[in-house]
């Protein structure tokens, strides 16, 4: 049953091929067996998962199960879960048990989904390799010497290894799409404001967006609707109706205008990756789409822009972790300043500190205009680039990441190289537009992701475009050999 997609699992549960409890037990077994190999989870909530499963079985028995009842999922450990440790991948919150549920957790739980556990992630979602986690790196299921990408590396690895059929994730600069690409799974970052950020521990508030890592676009479509929508507790969530994403999955692509971002194919893109992208585009042409080259001249500035805006917001967002009310507190502080300095000095890892310092610097008197304000202006230009592009095309298609997964440790000491991994994904965050990544082949036996971006609130169209490709290909059904068997050794 581990090879089934979420939509298949839903049918099988309804057909009583197995119970929710059996499914949950099976997945919990896989999670336990895979944990030493992948380190994909920070917390496994076996007990509550089984009780949720039991309740779901009850609903099936009485015929009152909803479309998502009993379907298992994992939450990225950035989402607050009541009564369950919510660490955000940091020593700072290693002792933090959330007293409340994030809106996303609350909604999916209300829909009857079963939470298997909390997935590993880069510390406070800052990283592109999952190496900054306080809980150790997550390993790529396709090759355990490689990174899974980040920051949602745990969610991507868990879905790729079929430990969970679907997982929540968050994306600030590519944290859903890049690990989805590196792990050969489907990841969607919705429009900024589509999914409530309440209870999602903030990294960079104007860029953070919750989304999903799934086996297929169809699976993502099933769950996205249930987690989306206006939330009065998040002022930046947008009050616009949530469409039924499943209904439009099979719309024809005839006449679809696909934009190719000229700047993305110019340099830095691995030639083998490029070939797979071009192959995927041929599939779309065959389905009736037209390819149009578009220019987004400000887009190459997205990495430096991001690395001003995101650290600026993070430096302020993470100020609340001061050792006073919750979280890590240094032993025997001699005074208030010592409490602050040592709690934060000992509680945060190197990458988090680097970003807090960068952010503090760019917001400082005398530097604010040169960095923060200028970055905001460039962000406007990038916004306009996207807006203009979507006047002539329906979607933008290109690579998700410049290359396949790299070795653990390979870029850990070079933050600039690490940051460049997000070069194709950051633009969508800066512009707030939705984007997803789907597997489109393999280079050196490692998965490659195809990125599809659309205008604001075009999630239905993106899922439709992705689903059309997944009906023509089976890249998304490939499972890493080490995790192909039902019983993991």
């Amino acid at each position, binding site marked *: 049953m581990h090879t089934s997609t979420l939509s298949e699992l839903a049918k099988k549960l309804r057909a009583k091929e197995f119970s929710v409890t059996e499914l949950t037990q099976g997945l919990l077994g896989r999670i336990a067996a895979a944990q030493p190999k992948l380190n994909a989870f920070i917390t496994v909530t076996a007990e509550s998962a089984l009780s949720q499963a039991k309740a779901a079985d009850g609903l099936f028995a009485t015929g009152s199960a909803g479309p998502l009842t009993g379907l298992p999922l994992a939450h990225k450990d950035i989402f607050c879960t009541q009564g369950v440790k919510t660490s955000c991948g940091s020593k700072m919150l290693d002792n933090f048990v959330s007293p409340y549920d994030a809106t996303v957790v609350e909604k999916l739980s209300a829909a009857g989904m079963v939470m298997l556990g909390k997935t590993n992630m880069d510390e406070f979602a800052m990283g592109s390799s999952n190496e900054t986690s306080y809980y150790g790196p997550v390993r790529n299921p396709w090759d355990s010497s490689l990174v899974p990408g980040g920051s949602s590396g745990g969610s991507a690895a868990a879905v790729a290894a079929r430990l969970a059929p679907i997982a929540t994730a968050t994306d600030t600069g590519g944290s859903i799409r890049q690990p989805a690409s590196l792990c050969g799974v489907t990841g969607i970052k919705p429009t900024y404001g589509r999914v409530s950020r309440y209870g999602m521990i903030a990294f960079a508030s104007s860029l953070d967006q919750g989304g999903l890592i799934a086996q297929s676009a169809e699976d993502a479509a099933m769950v996205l609707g249930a987690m989306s929508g206006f939330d009065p507790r998040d002022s*930046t969530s947008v009050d616009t109706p949530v469409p039924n994403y499943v209904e439009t999955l099979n719309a024809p692509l005839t006449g679809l205008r696909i934009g190719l971002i000229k700047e993305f194919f110019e340099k830095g893109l691995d030639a083998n990756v490029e070939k797979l992208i071009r192959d995927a585009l041929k599939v779309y042409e065959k389905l009736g789409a037209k390819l149009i080259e578009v220019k987004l001249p400000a887009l190459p500035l997205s990495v430096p822009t991001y690395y001003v805006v995101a650290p600026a917001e993070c*430096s302020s967002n993470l100020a609340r972790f001061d050792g006073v*009310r919750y979280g890590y507190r240094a032993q025997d502080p001699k005074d208030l300043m010592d409490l602050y300095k040592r709690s934060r000095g000992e509680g945060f890892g190197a990458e988090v500190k680097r970003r807090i310092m960068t952010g503090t610097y760019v917001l400082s008197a005398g530097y604010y205009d040169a960095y923060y304000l200028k970055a905001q202006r460039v962000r406007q230009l990038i916004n306009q680039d996207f807006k203009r592009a979507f006047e002539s095309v329906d979607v933008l298609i290109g690579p998700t990441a410049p290359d396949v997964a790299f070795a653990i440790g390979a870029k850990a000491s070079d933050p600039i190289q690490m940051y460049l991994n997000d070069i194709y994904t950051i633009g969508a965050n800066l512009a707030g537009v939705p984007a997803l990544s789907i597997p489109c082949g393999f280079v050196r036996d490692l998965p490659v992701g195809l990125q599809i971006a659309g205008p604001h609130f075009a999630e239905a169209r993106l899922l439709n475009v992705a689903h059309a490709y997944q009906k023509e290909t089976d890249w998304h059904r490939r499972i890493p050999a080490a995790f192909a068997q039902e019983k993991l050794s």
Partner: protein
Amino acid sequence: MSDSSSKTGWETVIGLEIHAQLSTASKIFSGSPTAYGAPPNSQANLVDLAYPGVLPVLNTEAVRMAVKFGLAVDATIAARSVFARKNYFYPDLPKGYQISQYELPVVGPGHMDIVLDDGTKKRVGITRAHLEEDAGKSLHEGLPKQSGIDLNRAGTPLIEIVSEPDMRSAKEAVAYLKKVHTLVRYLEICDGNMQEGSFRCDANVSVRKVGAEKFGTRAEIKNINSFRFVEKAINYEVARQIDVIEGGGKVVQETRLYDPDKGETRSMRSKEEANDYRYFPDPDLLPVEIDAAYIAKVKTSLPELPDQKAARFASQFGLSEYDAGVLTSSKELAAYYEQVAKLLAGGPNQSNRQPSKEQAKLVANWVAGSLAAALNEHNLEIGESRIDAARLAGLLGRIADNTISGKIAKDVFEAMWADGKDADAIIESKGLKQITDSGAIEKAIDEVMARNPGQLADYRSGKDKLFGFFVGQVMKATGGKANPAQLNDLLKQKLAG
């Protein structure tokens, strides 16, 4: 220390930053209640405690109140204002930043007129007024080697009202502060309670040589919470700065704290030690958009404002500008005054009848005089007065109809204040009814004249001043109850012989 602003050759320059807590039921960015005095941390929810993942949601009632204030000071209301984060670490600031407004405040330039001692009007510019959240409180009492944090106040909405450096003495600063205090209470956007910290101010003070164009270096005096302290703190600071400069030194830009016990200000931190607050727009909150229709709606909700009411009192009741100003210094006092005046004019059933100028003046003298003094002495608000409007009108009615004299009325007033009875009951029981029977008054005059032949002779030989002596003697003889006007007339006749 004397009022050093009068020190010759120097000019004082003052600007005030007033923090007024808005009287919303819940906090500015969370649903927690804002009531004062609850057990520590009982009014702080996860948002106030800055738990991971929580987000602020703007209480639009706070915006409405700020707009009310803006309209009342004739200010520009920003079509779009932005909340910004002011970043600094302090235990009573759970998020590590305060949500405030920085570059784009909700209320733009406005002004307020104050009346100076010599009766002239002065316009004080209001630079801006912005919304922000209050911090919590650190508690040190009863916690050896530890500090407690009470976050009940964290997130309480504040409006910070920033003036131009337009005031030239501590007295002007106090007059302005009082005027703003009156206004926010009229608008019912702040309870104005200074002891509880609902209304407090920081003063920016500098001095310069008379005629100098440039302002001197200023010091900011923090968190002054009474009108008296404002005056004292400013006067101390002005004298200090003049001493520094005259002693050949330089005033440094710094933040100073007023110590009411010692009556002095002392340095808190210098400009160099000042925080770099790293303000930037809060990405968790949308800009506040205010359109003309909203402003129009708020405008219709504005009450009669203090200046409007004072002008009406002056014209409608024929009061002096001064009396009108005093009687409208609070909405409750003004209402009390109007009620007494109307009752006196026509009784409770004819409340539409306008009081005569004399009646209006009589009421004004009593409300601003004996009543205000009694309230002040017992530290009571007008709403807590032991003599309500109806009973004061009853007393004044007895003056107007000559039942008692104004002098006797003061005794009746005291008795009313002390035991809560009506004026008539006291007049009756104490036999204070004025003697208006001319026969009785004449009899008393005759007796006094008979007892004081020497004075009578002196008076009649031209010592007019002795008239007062005879008035006093007759009053004494009648227990103060003789009708003063009648007494005057009769005495004149009799003394003339």
